[in-house]
């Protein structure tokens, strides 16, 4: 038992944090609310250069061949920066699904280019019905007629769905989902859909940790300088206790996400439950942090000129995406409560 990251993993996290601080500052994020694609110009290829897009792709396809446990900290950093790119869909879900479930020809056609960032992949599922970045993607994995299919974007008719988070470009698929090529069908497709949900939920949970931490940092910084009644509001016990609660929620959610990542990497038989625990708790914790952050800011946090809302709305969105807490609690209940088996081995 060693429940900690390696120095390499921490180092990759730190370098990504620095890179995103430079390449995706709040101004760049804010611009994504109104630009064409909701994405930061040029950033996707840089993420490819850094290896992030292919982090979980096999080395023979040009990836780093790393596991979920190597990906969870980078995803947390993407959350901290509120990175407006379909990183979860592309790197955490679509690439590994194509590699694990698709015929070789599909894999070889798409994965090497996905790894570099030359193309963007995204995915639509029952548990992810609104497709992030579909308009700027090249290939969309879709569930259709009992099969998982790979359909080029040009074959699909899309309809924009407006998210509360203006940097999330969501689409529903109006038609065309029966086109393209089959990745897999039958039992394999059901397995692939479950795997995709697990991967997406884990990745969203990791981003929620980073988003929550960023929001907490922003708030702690604010309450130290904002003065009322002649002293920083951060010296009032009510504010202290709000923020202590926020930190406690976040720090107690964190290990659940890391455990789920390790569990996914080990293909643990209970990994879906571990992911559900992580996603349910990370969602509620990040939402609690967002609520406290807004309350501690007061009116300024309620203004879109201030940055808080950019993070807060991403939290609201990701808490609901890839299975909301109710969905994941139901998965846990079905597996753990409804049975008769031992709760702990």
């Amino acid at each position: 038992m060693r429940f900690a990251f390696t120095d390499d993993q921490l180092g990759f996290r730190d370098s990504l944090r620095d890179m995103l601080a430079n390449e995706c500052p709040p101004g760049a994020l804010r611009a994504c609310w109104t630009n064409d694609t909701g994405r930061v110009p040029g950033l996707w290829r840089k993420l490819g250069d850094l290896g992030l897009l292919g982090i979980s792709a096999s080395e023979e396809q040009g990836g780093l061949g790393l596991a979920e446990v190597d990906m969870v900290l980078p995803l947390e950093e993407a959350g901290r920066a509120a990175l407006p790119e379909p990183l979860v869909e592309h790197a955490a879900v679509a690439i590994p699904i194509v590699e694990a479930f698709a015929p070789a020809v599909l894999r070889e056609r798409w994965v090497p280019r996905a790894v570099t960032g030359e193309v963007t992949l995204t995915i639509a599922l029952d548990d992810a019905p609104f497709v992030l970045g579909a308009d700027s993607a090249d290939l969309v994995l879709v569930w259709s007629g009992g099969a998982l299919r790979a359909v080029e974007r040009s074959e699909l008719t899309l309809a924009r769905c407006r998210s509360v988070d203006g940097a999330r470009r969501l689409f529903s698929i109006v038609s065309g989902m029966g086109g393209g090529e089959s990745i897999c069908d039958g039992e394999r497709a059901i397995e692939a859909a479950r795997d995709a949900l697990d991967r997406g939920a884990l990745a969203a949970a990791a981003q929620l940790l980073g988003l929550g931490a960023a929001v907490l940092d922003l708030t702690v910084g604010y309450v130290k300088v904002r003065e009322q009644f002649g002293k920083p509001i951060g010296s009032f016990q009510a504010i202290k206790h709000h923020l202590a609660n926020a930190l406690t929620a976040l720090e107690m959610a964190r290990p659940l996400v890391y455990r789920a990542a390790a569990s996914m990497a080990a293909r643990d038989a209970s990994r879906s439950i571990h992911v559900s625990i992580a996603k349910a708790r990370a969602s509620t914790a990040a939402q609690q942090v967002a609520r406290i952050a807004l309350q501690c800011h007061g009116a300024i946090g309620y203004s879109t000129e201030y940055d808080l809302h950019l993070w807060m709305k991403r939290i609201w969105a990701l808490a609901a995406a890839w299975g909301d807490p109710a969905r994941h609690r139901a998965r846990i209940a079905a597996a753990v409560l409804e049975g008769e088996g031992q709760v702990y081995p």
Partner: protein
Amino acid sequence: MDLEFTETERAFRAECRAWLGAHVPKTPLPSGDTREGFARHLEWEHELFDAGWAVVSWPRKYGGREATLFEWLIFEEEYYRAQAPNRVTQNGIFLLAPVLFEYGNDEQRDRILEPMARGDHTWAQAWSEPNAGSDLAGLRSEAIRVEGGWRLRGQKTWCTRGAFCDSVYGLFRTNPKVPRHRGLTYFMVRLDAEGVRVRGVERLDGDEGFAEVFFDDVFVPDTDVIGKVDKGWDIAMATTNSERGLTLRSPGRFMATATRLIELWRSRRHAADPALRDAVVEAWIDAEAYRWYTYGTVTRMVEGHAMGADSSLNKIFWSEMDVRMHETALALLGPTRELEAGGLDAEGAWLKGFQFALAGPIYAGTNEIQRNVVAERLLKLPKG
């Protein structure tokens, strides 16, 4: 104790319901916190005024129908039940008007109230300053005595709908030599006066619902001072009691929200998280609690008692209830909750309503301040 409304009150309710049923726009208006929506809402306010529903509790000479407090509650219940448009005139009608009734003079009332009620002259509250939010007594904008009036300098912020209104009201420091809560005076200021600059500020939900107002030697005549010079704080406290308490948040609003929530639950119950049934029941109990608490308050007011610090307790409750109700609704919506749904249809309205509800624990004095007030004034705990 008599829980029945009188025959007169029931007839009043029937009259409200009939009129609203016939006149409330069938398709929701665009948000009143946008420039376009504000104008559309004013048309509605005109219609309301012309039919005598704009200010039911006011004297007839200002456009009211001298309704009792209970009739006013009934009107509000019916208004929200009918899903009638939000009142963009509310910061005048519900917050400034009570001050004018109590502290203004006849000239002011005759000049200001009817155009306010008609929606011909619109009002925003200029309360907070960048460095005076929870610590309202710390405000710095000042008024210098000049011939026939005052010259105002400083900045106000978070003025709701300030970018669209004609005038604001607020406190300015007229005597810097006395302690914080003293030396403040209550002014009304036209936003088209020379030296005023208004900057719209976007709110969480994307509407330009706030404004910053800058005052650069703005002349205000003595006739636009409310009450006595240097006594603005006492007047303001009366206003904030209104804002926190009864007038801004009548039970009808939450009864309507609870009703919509129960309808949403009915439409989703088969797929819903089982815990949400209890959350919906609790939301309805909340609405009932607030309704009967208010009926009790109104009974006391009718019998001549004042509200006092109860309004803080009241504000804590309704503002947090409103957040809980919207959180429950969003949970019922499942993954679609993040969608704005392209407009004001019922589901998008929950998301917008949630964002609006989040302001409740902040404005009109944060709930942290209100809890201090409840502890110190109602429970008599010592100051910190």
